[in-house]
């Protein structure tokens, strides 16, 4: 059975943070969502210390084999999440990973302590990479900043800490190494690639925020190369993602050394994409031939 930092998973397929609102999906699809939940673990949208409304529209733009989003991390804030959302997410039949982000180490520490203290939470993902808000770039672009943040957070919980890497930096492998030195239990990659679009009707930037992050199959080759280079630099388990839309795609990430894969944008096109990818992966020849085992350094 696949596992991630000691968390047993039914399949190696989870979701990418910010691409699935399990609460809204349950209201839309009913309890069928729980009976056939598409992911082996659920990663929440990123939670910030205070509530955020998100970016001004327009927020999404379709691109060749992908899309740009400029959502801006709308969320209820730490208090709202813990009070309203966490109890409902705890009803999901899979382990829960909560993504958090803050602009200062103190706020990061506060979020981490309060989230990690909740029994329902299996692991915490640290979003140091979201390109939609200015705060995320600074830490995730810099190996020393990343290591320093991990130094500040590592002692606060024994639960697994997953560092979500940004692809929008010259050397993601060096940042991953900084995360490892600081005591991360795993890294996840890639987040979206900084991108923009022009509205042909106006000649102006199409997105309300001016720019956003590119995702979908268009980014998959970039994700694979970042995975390869990070794999070479660190011994940590890696959650690989970026344009995975089939089992064959997922097998490529596993072949390059990802322990687990995440499905993001494809869930927009297919609400059960996670289940489909897992099923296809099982029967994927490439997966069977793969000689690269998932690393377990526990």
């Amino acid at each position, binding site marked *: 059975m696949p596992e991630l930092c000691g968390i047993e998973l039914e399949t190696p397929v989870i979701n990418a943070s910010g691409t699935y609102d399990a609460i809204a999906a349950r209201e839309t699809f009913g309890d069928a969502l729980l009976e*056939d939940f598409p992911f082996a673990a659920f990663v929440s949208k990123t939670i910030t210390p205070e509530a955020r409304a998100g970016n001004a529209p327009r927020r999404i733009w379709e691109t060749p*084999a992908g899309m740009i989003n400029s959502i801006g991390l709308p969320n209820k804030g730490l208090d709202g999440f813990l009070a309203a959302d966490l109890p409902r997410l705890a009803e999901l039949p899979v382990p829960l990973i909560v993504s958090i982000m803050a602009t200062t180490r103190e706020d990061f520490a506060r979020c981490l302590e309060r989230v990690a203290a909740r029994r329902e939470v299996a692991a915490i993902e640290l979003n140091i990479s979201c390109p939609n808000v200015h705060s995320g770039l600074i830490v995730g672009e810099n190996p020393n900043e990343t290591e320093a943040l991990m130094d500040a957070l590592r002692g606060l919980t024994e639960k697994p800490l997953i560092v979500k890497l940004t692809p929008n930096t010259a050397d993601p492998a060096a940042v991953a190494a900084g995360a490892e030195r600081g005591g991360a239990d795993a890294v996840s990659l890639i987040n979206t690639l900084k991108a923009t679009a022009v509205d042909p009707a106006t000649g102006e930037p199409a997105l309300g925020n001016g720019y956003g992050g590119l995702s979908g199959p268009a980014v998959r080759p970039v994700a694979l190369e970042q995975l390869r280079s990070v794999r070479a630099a660190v011994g940590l388990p890696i959650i690989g993602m970026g344009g995975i839309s089939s089992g064959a795609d997922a097998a490529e990430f596993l072949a390059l050394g990802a322990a687990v894969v995440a499905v993001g944008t494809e869930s927009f*096109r297919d609400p059960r994409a996670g289940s489909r990818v897992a099923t296809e992966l099982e029967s994927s020849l490439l997966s069977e031939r793969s000689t690269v085992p998932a690393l377990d350094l526990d």
Partner: protein
Amino acid sequence: MTAPFGRRLCEVAANRESGGYRVVSLLDREGPAPEPGQFYMLAAAAGWGARDGRAFLPRAISVAETSPAAGGGARLDFLLDAIGPGTERLCGLVPGEEVWLTGPLGNTFASPREVVPDAAGAVLVGGGVGVAPLALLRKRFSEHGVPHRVLLGFRDRVHQGGLDLFCGSSGALCPEVRLATEDGHAGVQGRVTDLLLPILAGDDAASGVVYTCGPPAMLEAVRALCAEHGVACELALESPMACGFGACFGCAVPTPGGGFLRLCVDGPVLRGDQVEEVSHAYA
């Protein structure tokens, strides 16, 4: 009512011309019958992405007509205008092809008395391809004996269609339907708001509820006119939408108190007072 979980393949039963638009009919063997205002996410099973990697995302399309299908399930009619790679592909579907479909999604229109307790009737105001959800709403109002008038506006012959959805069994336009066209080729020359204004100015206007769907500028004009005359209205909005089930947070609509609604799960039907201003930026 919840939608079946996941997308499903549906067969194209028909694709016919309707003025300058197309009416594409799908056979949904599994889903419940949709309510007026609800929508589906649609993507052709083949040839999606054939134009420079687009269409990539499914398209959110509101249902214009539904009926029980021979052999079980529901027949779903969608009114489509080819304005980009997604709608062009959907307009080109041929019977026997398959379409990925998720839904029915979103909310439905409230009855006039749910909006205004002593409401006497309804005024439906549609523009362009946005007349689609009002066709199904008009049918419901007729079935339930809700007094209603229908005002439809179109730019010109090319940008006009779906009128057959507002026809009775005789094939003639229902008597309660009035047209405005900007080029004057049919109905009154002008805009649909020219037909609405005298109704809103009438003594009994406040006892009616306005239901509207259409292009952003028209929706904003209708919303503002209703607000000015103290008439309740419900707007079926459209917004760029990747998923249709609350996952992507792309379809954000600003609200008067600040913050945003997600049109897919909080709408697509919103009360006039839930919307600050209908803008091209999100509609």
